[in-house]
């Protein structure tokens, strides 16, 4: 009972600060956002000024993209890239466009059919723009076909039934599942495995990762999904944002270490904890 009361007290005792919203972590979240922006800005400027950026660690899943497209070209079969949930303002779309630009360009160069299945009607329009741009960069704008980007309504199982149907009918040699997926992950990955495609998956939904790992050849875990844009383009400015991210992680680790020390000294007066609650 005392535990319950303690929990209850904790949720009501929220620090208020002027006009700031009275939610746990509102102020510290704001400060965190500003700090992260500052770090990112610093490293991007450094990269723009031509300072050398460190190498990104090897990510097998991203290296495999070239191999997968190569095999699709040899077999004369299409390459599929799909995402159901990401809207235009979603971080998964931003990540997806990084993959899309790279894959579409390679496909255009090798004259391999490329298909994108989108589940959001606004994102479908933007995907088309990204792909057209890549085809243009590859010097083959005429290779873009009107059925390259296919919108299928994002209703979970309608989308999945359509995608599995397309997989079995068009037999892509490479399939890529990038973004946030739910229970449909198992169906997609297993149907893809049955048609013998090379499969690369990337998702941040930890509950669905096991299914991708089970049935895909390469799986990018969690945050690795977001690293693709920098990794594939090798552009120093994008790498700079990755460095900023890593600095963020080191700061988090430092805060946790501080928090542990404070907790061991006195759990009641843990200043780190109070700071983060603010």
């Amino acid at each position, binding site marked *: 009972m005392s535990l319950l009361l303690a929990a209850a007290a904790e949720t009501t005792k929220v620090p208020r600060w002027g006009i700031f919203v009275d939610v746990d972590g509102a102020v510290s979240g704001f400060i965190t956002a500003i700090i992260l922006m500052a770090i990112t800005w610093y490293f*991007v400027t450094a990269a723009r000024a031509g300072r050398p950026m460190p190498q990104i660690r090897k990510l097998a899943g991203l290296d495999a993209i070239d191999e997968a497209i190569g095999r699709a070209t040899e077999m004369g079969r299409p390459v599929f890239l799909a995402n159901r949930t990401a809207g235009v303002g979603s971080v998964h779309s931003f990540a997806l*466009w990084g993959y899309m630009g790279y894959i579409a360009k390679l496909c255009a160069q090798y004259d391999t059919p490329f298909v994108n299945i989108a589940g959001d009607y606004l994102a479908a329009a933007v995907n088309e723009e990204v792909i057209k741009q890549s085809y243009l960069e590859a010097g083959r704008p005429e290779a873009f076909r009107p059925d390259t980007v296919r919108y299928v309504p994002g209703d979970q199982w*309608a989308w999945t039934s359509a995608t599995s149907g397309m997989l079995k009918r068009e037999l892509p040699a490479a399939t890529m599942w990038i973004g946030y997926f739910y229970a449909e992950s198992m169906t997609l990955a297993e149907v893809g495995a049955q048609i013998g495609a090379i499969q690369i998956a990337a998702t941040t939904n930890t509950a669905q990762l096991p299914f991708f790992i089970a049935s895909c050849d390469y799986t990018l875990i969690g945050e690795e999904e977001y690293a693709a844009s920098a990794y594939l383009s090798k552009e120093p400015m994008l790498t700079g944002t990755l460095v900023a991210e890593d600095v963020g992680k080191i700061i988090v680790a430092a805060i946790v270490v501080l928090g542990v020390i404070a907790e061991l000294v006195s759990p009641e007066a843990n200043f780190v904890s109070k700071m983060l609650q603010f």
Partner: protein
Amino acid sequence: MKRTVPVIITTVTATIVFLSIVLFKTDAAGWPGQFDRMRQFMAAVMMFMGMANMTRVHGSAIRKRDRNWMFSVWLLVIMFAYAIFGMAVGNKNATYRWIYDAFIPPINSTMYAMVAFYLTSASYKAFRAKTLDAALMMACAVWVMLSNVPVGDMLWSSESWLGGMAGVRDWIVSVPNSAVSRGIAVGTFLGGFATQLRVFLGIERRHLGQG
């Protein structure tokens, strides 16, 4: 005008929205609430984009007489008929609901139920102890599956030492597992934040295409 202005619009809008949420109380009447309404209204105005895309994709299939062009005809007919009917009578209409209930829930539940089949065949092919990674994953999966059904209790009862199979499972779930999920969550947050900053700062502008 074609690429720079949109980048500026994005950055300025993001800054305004960010500050309005951080500085003002979030309720329907305040600034964040108003911005939210505008965003919703914009998405509502754009709602026919999906049908436009589908008309084009399936229209091209019909024109080229693809293998499944008859199905594409059927799809377009049913889509337009149902949409026009629904917009005319509203989604609470009994006939509209009847059509919906007859097709969509059974197909959805069946697609969902099929996951069980795929799970079965995936475990046959995937859980092979080729590497230590795979072996660990397999061992944990088998352990949890056994402890979730009566057979697990028969093998190692939950009355006995360490709480039996279920006891060990609960320890794995509450200690190493939640540590992993939290670690991944920290990385995901930072990665997502950086990805958004790339667009916010105008470094990533692939979505704006050429010209």
